[in-house]
């Protein structure tokens, strides 16, 4: 459910891009976008939706799961 496709997570959303197709995703770029948001995507960091530690975890997980 939710916003993105990420095969490794079984996620099937279609609001934002399919994360398995996004070029050049890495820890830093995921953290940047999760923190500050992009378009309709919330700024999970700036708006304190997630803590820094949670964003670190998500960024690490996504960066290491794309294309798997």
């Amino acid at each position, binding site marked *: 459910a939710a916003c993105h496709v990420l095969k490794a*997570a079984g996620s*099937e959303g279609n609001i934002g891009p*399919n994360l398995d197709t996004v*070029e050049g995703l890495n820890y830093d770029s995921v953290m940047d*976008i999760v923190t500050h948001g*992009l378009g309709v995507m919330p700024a999970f960091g700036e708006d304190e939706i997630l803590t820094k530690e949670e964003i670190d975890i998500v960024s690490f*997980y996504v960066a290491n799961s794309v294309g798997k």
Partner: protein
Amino acid sequence: MKKNIRKTNLSRRNFLSGTATLAGIAATASVVPISIANANHSEGKKGLPDFINWKDRDALIVHSDKGIETHRSAIGESLVTPNRNIYIRNNMPTMTDTQIGDRKKWKVSIEGVKNPQTFTLAQLQKLGHETMATILQCSGNGRGFFEHKPRGSQWKTGAAACVLWTGVPVKTVVDACGGISGGAVYMTSEGIDHEPTGLDPKKAMIARSVPKKVYKDAMLAWEMNGVALPNAHGGPLRMVTPGYFGINNVKHLGKVAFTSKESSVKYMAKSYRISPIGKKGSQYPSCWEMPVKSWITRPTDETGTVKAGKVQIVGVAMGGTKKVRSVKVSVDGGSSWKKAKFIGPNLGKYAWRQFVLETTLSAGSYNIASLASNGSDKQPELRMENRRGYAHNGWKDHSVNITVV
């Protein structure tokens, strides 16, 4: 970074086991709905997502399934960009045939006029009929040249196209509604492509306000380069705002309102603002008028070996909201310039012109640049640095390096 990750390993595990996936995390944050849009994102044949599997994969650079760019050499070779080569940049999922339903019954409401009315597409098609050429260009076209790596697709030159639109002039529609109401300052267009997602319209609706004067040349378009407007480009009906960045050409159009204030939705109030690096806010200019711009389309490293001798240097040049007046070309990185010749038909001030400079090059390395002018403004050498990498028209970054053998 590694140190940090090691430190958080334990909590990482707990966190993920508690929520299962990133999707789960997002859902628990209660800002993302559980309902999802109709999935049309699966990868079809040719490495393109299903919803645009009719496009020419060889003409395109895939940044993601929702950010797809035209190769420099696949743009404007015969002035109008073929639909199968045109870039894709959609903030919301493209609406499906099922979501759209009977195209002739698609509705758009007109507000802020003396007699507010709702028209179906069939009614609009009886009201008027016009064709015009405009440049469709993403605000972030050229973002890939910024050194601070702004978030978003790393477009170079290919988030742009020259398109022939057919539809009804907004002015004709306004006249049919008795004219614009007093006090209007903006023309605000709203899409409905957020509706199937279930997201909060304040955050997800694509609503764009532009200065009211834009209506005089604007169009409600149902056809793109001779075919019914494809869903992926906002079909069955979109707003066309000539000379204004792509985002203002609202897709899947549901409402046009003449308003005294800019729309308060996120896509107007917060997004698409040209702010200094490190700053943001609605006090900064919105991505509205496009600046004068040009770039070389051939020869490039995409178009094969360049042999010594006579060479045709080809490109496209646009004037923004004014007619493009001249283009100069340099083969030595801007040390010297020669006037290029416009070729092909002139489709009006909102289209681009093709240009060519015939020259003779001996073996060696060259930096080829183009510099357009619309009479009032010309392209600067350098980019205007800004947070999100918008509105880049500096000639230096857009130049190409070639080797002649």
